[in-house]
C-alpha cells in the first residue's frame, strides 16, 4: 500500500469509526432514523436536582392527534409496549421508570390499553454534583383507527444539573 492509498484507507476507517462512535444503544443501521415520528418529547430540556439524593424527573410526551400508542402494558401479548431506553452517562443513575396507566380504547373491534394526547413518564434519578446529559429513547408503536405503523424510537435528551 503506497502513501496516498494509506491516506484514503485511514480517512475511510475514520469516517466509519466516527459514525459508529456517534451511535447510541438503540440506534441501528436501518431506515428508522429517518422515519416520521408520531410521538414527540415535549419537555424538560434541563432540570435541577439535589445532588446524591433520589429525585424524580417528569418527562412529558405528546402523541400526534388522531393516533394512539400502546401503553407500557398492552392489552395483548403480541402488541408492542411503550418503553424508555436510557443511556446513563457517568455520575448518574436512572431508574426505575414509572409509566401512567393506559386508557381503554377500542379500535378495529379490539380492546386496547393506550396513550393518547399528552402523557408523563416519571424517571427516578440519582446524580453526583455536576451537569449530566441523559440521552434516551421512547420506544413506541403507533396506530390510527385503520392503520398501524412500525415501532419507532422518539429521541429524548435532558440536561440534569445536580447541586
Amino acid at each position, binding site marked *: 500500500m503506497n502513501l496516498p492509498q494509506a491516506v484514503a484507507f485511514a480517512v475511510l476507517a475514520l469516517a466509519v469509526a466516527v459514525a459508529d462512535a456517534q451511535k447510541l444503544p438503540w440506534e441501528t443501521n436501518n431506515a428508522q432514523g429517518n422515519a416520521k415520528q408520531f410521538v414527540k418529547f415535549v419537555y424538560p430540556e434541563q432540570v435541577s436536582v439535589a445532588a446524591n439524593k433520589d429525585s424524580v424527573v417528569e418527562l412529558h410526551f405528546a402523541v400526534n392527534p388522531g393516533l394512539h400508542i400502546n401503553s407500557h402494558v398492552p392489552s395483548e401479548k403480541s402488541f408492542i409496549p411503550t418503553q424508555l431506553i436510557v443511556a446513563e452517562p457517568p455520575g448518574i443513575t436512572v431508574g*426505575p421508570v414509572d409509566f401512567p396507566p393506559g386508557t381503554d380504547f377500542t379500535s378495529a373491534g379490539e380492546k386496547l390499553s393506550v396513550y393518547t394526547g399528552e402523557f408523563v413518564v416519571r424517571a427516578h434519578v440519582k446524580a453526583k454534583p455536576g451537569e449530566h446529559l441523559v440521552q434516551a429513547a421512547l420506544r413506541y408503536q403507533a396506530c390510527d383507527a385503520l392503520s398501524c405503523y412500525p415501532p419507532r424510537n422518539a429521541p429524548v435528551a435532558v440536561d440534569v444539573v445536580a447541586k
Partner: protein
Amino acid sequence: MKRNYWVILVVIVALGLIAWAGVTNYKRRKESKMPTAVLSATPPTSASDPAAADAPFKNPLADKQAPDFTLHDTTGKKVSLSDYKGKAVVLDFWATWCAPCKVEIPWLAKLHDQYASQGLVILGVSEDDLDQDDKAALTKEKQQIADSAAKLGINYPVLLDDKEVSKPYGGIDALPTTFFVDRNGKVVAATIGLVDRDEIEANIKKALGSGDQAPGQAPDPAQKGAS
C-alpha cells in the same frame, strides 16, 4: 519529498482521530445501560382529531409489474412470487402487533376459500421484526407469527419479510398494506389501512379478471361487475 511529509502528517492525524473515536465509542458502550421500563399513574386525555399521520395513499406500483421476491414461509419453505405465474395474487403485508390487520385477515381467509378455484393466491407477508443474530429468539419469533396466523384462521402461506421485500413495494409505512396482482404479474390495485371487505373483493375480482389465465382455470363469472 515535501509532499510525502504532508501525506505522513495527514495519516498521523487520521490515525489519531480513529484512536479518539475508538476510545469514545468504547467509553460510550461501557457507560450505556439498556432497557428501563416499569409502571405507575396519570391517565392521558383522548384524541378526537381523526386526521391521520400521512398524506393520501398513492399506489407506488400502479400498472407496473409486481417486483419478484423469494422469501421463506413460516414452515421454512422458499416461496417466490414468480411461482404463481398465471394466477391472481394478493400480497398482504401485516404484523402480529397490528390490530386492524386482525379485522382484515379473516375476510381474506374467506375470500381465499371463495376464489382459490378461480386462480386466486393470497400471500401474507409478516412485517414483524426478526432477530437474525439470536437463533433461539428467531425460532421463538417465527413460532409466535405462526401461532398468530393460526389463531386468525389464515389458510394461505405466511412469508417472513427480510425487510428487503418491502422496499420495492414502496417501503410499507403502514399496515395492513395490500397489493392485488393480476395473472400477468401486473399490480392492478393496492390499498393501505383497513378498507371495506367489498373493496377487497372488488380488487380480487379485478386481479382475477385481467391478464392471461393459467391453463385449466375456470373463468370468473363475477368478474364482469368488478371495478
